[in-house]
């Protein structure tokens, strides 16, 4: 799958958690556990929130709107960051994408 940063229709796509990772919020920090590699990845607060929202019930556009609202940050920058982060998680096998 190519980068969604290059995909003009990306905003309507829905990211969801892959079976390849387990995750938990530990002392306020979201950690992802890659099941095959048994490696942990720690996420900061905003990334952790994106991860929670990327549970198959929100489009990328919806996630951007929620994060923008909850963290009181500027829309364009958030959109770019969310898309880059989602791309990274797809590359790690932590997220998959489906169409609405």
């Amino acid at each position, binding site marked *: 799958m190519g980068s969604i940063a290059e995909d003009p229709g990306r905003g309507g796509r829905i990211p969801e*958690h892959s*079976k390849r990772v*387990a*995750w*938990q*919020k*530990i*002392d306020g920090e979201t*950690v992802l*556990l890659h*099941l*095959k*590699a*048994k*490696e*942990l*990845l*720690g996420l900061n607060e905003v990334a952790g929130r994106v991860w929670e929202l990327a549970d198959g019930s929100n489009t990328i556009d919806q996630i951007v709107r929620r994060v923008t609202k909850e963290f009181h940050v500027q829309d364009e920058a958030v959109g770019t960051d969310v898309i880059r982060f989602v791309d990274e998680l797809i590359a790690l096998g932590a997220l998959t994408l489906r169409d609405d």
Partner: protein
Amino acid sequence: MGSRIETIRHRALRSYIPLNVTLELTLACNLRCIHCYNFDRALSYHPTKEREEELTGAEVHRILDEVREEGCLYLAFTGGEALVHPNLDDFVRHAGRSGMMVTLKSNGTLLNPPTVQRLAAAGAAAIDISLYGADAPTHDAFVKMPGAFDRTVAGARTARDAGLLVKFNFVAMRQNVDQIERMIALTTEMGIPYGVDAQVRARYDGSRSSLDLRIDRAALDRLYRGPLRQFVPPADEQRNSVQCACARSVCGISAFGEVYPCIGAPIPSGNLRKQSFRDIWRDSPALNSIRGLRLKDFPACETCDHMKYCWRSSGVIYANTGNYTGPRVFGEDWVCMEAEVMHKINDDAASIERPGTPAGPVHHDSLE
């Protein structure tokens, strides 16, 4: 990233987050292992329980949600034999979807291709399989089922080929102590890692004949100077505790909803049919008592010369002596002898450079 896992584990230990939960789905089993810690398998079922009393599907779902909410990341289903439970796929799916890593603890005999495919599709990540011999006569006599060895080995291969993380667990006992080297060769040839434990516990039904299976000092010495040399722990000069993760980042739940500090330490700490997991985990006097223990509370260990070499398991000690902080005096439990033997081996090898530090033996208290 390995150190990242250690950081998270330490944080869970410090903050009392139940990162590792083992849930016993049933006491029923298709084998009759002679060392089984559940109950004497010469009986058809636990002497004071009924199978109908085991947790229902709805209760298991609720418990999975509650442990998840309280911080569980690593969820293990055990038994009995977890695979004889008719709703196992459903439980695996429920736990996996909520974000937990699901491991099954199994004897492996029921891991046929359709079952493995179903479990993998449901989201099972790993399977720990018990192996008690390097050949069918030894293993089958141990589990009291002809053909079990072949089915277990085939099941492990099937699970491995399906992409599950498979690991063998050995328990070194009188019957198989001279086969450990061949067992290691077998699993190595299969490309499957293994863990070894030589500690045997009294059963949870109070019967103690399983303790007769423990190996003696000579066999222990032979084993740890031979095929298990890599498991002799190097002296840990920094060690100032004999405690494991029981009640701090580890928790066990019985097939009847009883919460334990660890599935290997059956100290009743509250029942999930009467209280929520959160209330028990946070407020149970038994769990909080364990969290408050310090080295001075372990009378024989505090001044023991062998402490730095000891694989002491509070659960095993509790099952064997009735005293979680035991032994009361050095030598009251078998593990004292194990530590003494390891200390001697280390002393003998003091001038010889050792290989790198391996993972320790797999005790029930440290299944993380």
